[in-house]
């Protein structure tokens, strides 16, 4: 049993296994790039599964649409993690030992080393050794007396290589741990806010349109802050290409909340608002048409509801604005007279006969092409429906019927058969904000920076050895031998060695 455990441990921590695991990790990550992923684009996943029959279902069951949360991907990186720990621990002990160890004995025959030079100098051995010690400042040195009276210096340098290597690997461990902790305590929410002075407060998950909590987040303890979107400005080039998006916002957090003080901020694409430990991003923008319904009895309802862009280049948008008849208390009756205005909105209208398209993303000459439907909008049915569309099943079973179709410019209105008027008043802008919270991301960054530093040291520093032996001759002369050995794969030691050797072996130095 012990033997089995030991063999498993050894197998898992061997370099060969680590290599295989590394390539498995690379291989396992690939499907995430090639197949749609739920974490990025759920509708694409649904479409893919629907479009590929049993193959799609099989892939889904094998977690190929959630690669980075899948059992097999996790298994690989967990094993790699263990393998890494198992490899690093013994190396750290080795390293600690090597830090205290002295450079190795001078080899008896320096001529057999890859780098070797020798000279006969007119100087005492002691002077030669002293000069060598002076020249090799910064190297780890040990001087030895040899049996035949010769003296030698062993020098070694480049310990930083292993230091860097260990720092790199430990920092990588730190990064993985920080990532894992981040997955526990992070959250991310998206919300659409109209750019007309509307407010959003990070006080609960219900304020969001969508919310993705970490494994340990239940949404009760969000960082409190509020944001008010005053205005949104989009700059476009004449070609229609976006140049800059700016949302003028006010925000309050911490003590400002109690004092009700607002601070201004220009929210832009590359400059999120960082407050209260959270970040607020400007993710997108769009248009919200305002419709007013005037019932025959004179009652009015006005709504401005966000519609969503269907074309990112021209911002042609679609959506549905839903009205309840006022003053109808009987729910049966109400569900016969609800109104839905649905269709397309073009910020810069281009009419092809009666077909509306958008010619430019900016709000220059808006128009809508809408259907008006009357009947049961399905809002009271208890079934969820998109804010951007209608419940098609209500149309299919005849409970919601089209009563008008019209193209409208601001100020224009449709009059229905019962005398109800629907007026298109104009267009507001909305912004889509994302709030992100990740308490460990700064530790991920620290680890990443350490990784880079460690990697740089471990790939550029060369571990190398150099020996000098001075053998005293008659008449005060000394034969000096210099030998060198690079301990790492890296070539390029030759140049440094030649420079050092030339200095040590030049007669001027000796005298």
């Amino acid at each position, binding site marked *: 049993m012990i033997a089995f455990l030991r063999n498993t441990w050894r197998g898992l921590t061997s*370099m*060969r296994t*680590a*290599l295989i695991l*590394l*390539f498995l*990790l*690379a291989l396992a*990550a*690939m499907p*995430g*790039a*090639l197949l749609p*992923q739920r*974490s*990025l684009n759920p509708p694409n996943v649904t479409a893919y599964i629907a479009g590929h029959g049993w193959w799609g279902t099989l892939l889904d069951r094998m977690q190929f649409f959630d*690669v*980075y949360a899948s059992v097999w991907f996790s298994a690989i990186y967990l094993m790699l993690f263990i393998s890494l720990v198992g490899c690093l621990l013994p190396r750290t002990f080795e390293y600690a030992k090597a830090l205290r160890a002295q450079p190795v004995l001078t080899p008896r025959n320096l001529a057999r080393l890859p780098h070797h030079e020798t000279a006969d100098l007119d100087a005492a051995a002691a002077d030669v050794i002293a000069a060598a010690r002076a020249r090799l400042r910064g190297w780890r040195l040990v001087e030895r007396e040899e049996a035949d009276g010769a003296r030698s210096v062993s020098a070694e340098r480049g310990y930083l290589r292993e230091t860097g290597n260990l720092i790199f690997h430990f920092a990588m461990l730190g990064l993985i741990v920080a*990532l894992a902790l981040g997955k526990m305590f992070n959250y*991310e929410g998206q919300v659409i806010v109209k750019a007309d002075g509307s407010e959003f407060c990070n006080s609960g998950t219900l304020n969001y349109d969508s919310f993705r909590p970490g494994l340990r987040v239940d949404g009760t303890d969000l960082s409190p802050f509020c944001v008010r979107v005053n205005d949104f400005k989009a700059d476009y*080039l004449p*070609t229609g*290409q*976006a*140049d*800059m*998006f700016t949302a003028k916002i006010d925000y309050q957090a911490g003590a400002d909340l109690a004092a009700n003080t607002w601070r201004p901020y220009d929210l*832009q*694409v*590359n*400059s*999120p608002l960082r407050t209260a430990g959270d*970040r607020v*991003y400007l*993710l997108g923008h769009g248009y919200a048409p305002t419709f007013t319904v005037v019932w025959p009895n004179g009652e009015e309802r006005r709504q401005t509801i966000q519609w969503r862009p269907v074309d990112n280049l021209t911002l042609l948008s679609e959506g549905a604005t839903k009205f309840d008849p006022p003053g109808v208390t009987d729910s049966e009756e109400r569900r016969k007279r609800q109104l839905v205005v649905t269709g397309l909105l073009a910020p810069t209208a281009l009419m092809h006969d009666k077909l509306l398209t958008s010619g430019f993303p900016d709000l220059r000459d808006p128009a809508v092409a809408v259907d008006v439907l009357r009947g049961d909008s399905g809002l009271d049915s208890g079934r969820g429906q998109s804010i951007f569309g209608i419940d098609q099943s209500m149309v299919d079973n005849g409970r919601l019927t089209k009563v008008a179709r019209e193209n409208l410019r601001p100020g224009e209105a449709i009059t229905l058969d019962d005398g109800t008027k629907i007026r298109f008043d104009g267009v507001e802008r909305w912004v889509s904000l*994302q709030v*992100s919270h*990740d308490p460990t*991301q700064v530790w*991920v*960054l620290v680890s*990443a*920076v350490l*990784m*880079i530093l460690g*990697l*740089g040291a471990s*790939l550029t520093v060369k571990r190398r050895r150099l020996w000098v032996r001075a053998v005293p001759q008659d008449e005060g002369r000394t034969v000096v031998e210099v030998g060198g050995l690079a301990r790492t*794969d*890296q*070539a390029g030691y*030759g140049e440094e060695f030649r420079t050092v050797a030339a200095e040590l072996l030049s007669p001027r130095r000796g005298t």
Partner: protein
Amino acid sequence: MPVNETLSTYSDWTYSAAALVYVFAMICYAVEQAFNRAAKKSEAKELVGAGAPVIGRIEDAPARDRPERFGRIAVALTVLGALLHLSALVLRGVATHRAPWGNMYEYGMAVTLVAVTAWIVLMSKFDVRRLGVFVLTPIVILMFLGGTVLYTDAAPVQPALQSYWLIVHVSAAIISSGLFLVPGVVSVLYLMRTRHDANPAKFAKFGPKLPDADTLDRLAYRTTIFAFPIYTFGIICGAIWAEAAWGRFWGWDPKETVAFVAWVVYAGYLHSRATAGWRGTRAAVINSVGFAMIVFNLFFINLVIAGLHSYA
């Protein structure tokens, strides 16, 4: 600020001129490669010995023969092409008032420039001039694709790209990708050379003309260890930028995923060279796969798969 049309036109011209000059250089390298007698080289090598500097060997060569002359012309043309290439890039940058790597055409232009520059530097350090044709071929193909399929008119970039990280992150990606091209090509040549060494019938004509396997291996390794930290730096800068632009530092966007895969593959390469049974052939295969991932990440991911990096 509006784009300077005149300068951008000059940039297009110098780009085409650079590609054309590279083609001529390629032909000269090919002539040298084809007519060079392999025996002469190994003879020269024995005469001088391992430690002598390369430049000395060339000067010691008894007489300059015709292939040798073609080789020198090829180097001169490569340098000329690189200068034209550089001016094309600089003119683009001046014309658009931004870092000249805001779309795939410009990115490709910069990557190939880095690769050529790296090759010029390596030619001065290793005796590998004859391999120029193999390095320039993918470069010319990339430049041709860039200038035709991927060509984009000079224009300002979209809001997401208006950040100083465009300079830092993308230039790191460009430099490392350009550098990785060299070991990618050299590793394939290494595989040919070792197959020839194991069985002289394979690549019989071509094999002996390649530098010895050891030189190729060292060349690939040294370039890779230079490029790998830059690549790592590029990925980390990308994560920092993503945190500011997209709301998270890592989101398994297809581009991020394949960058990660390529990083893991190159990490595997570095480890394989320190592992018995994996150095040599397997390491060379891994390095080629690594470069294949880089190319895949540039073309397939940007053009076929929709992701946040699809700017072209």
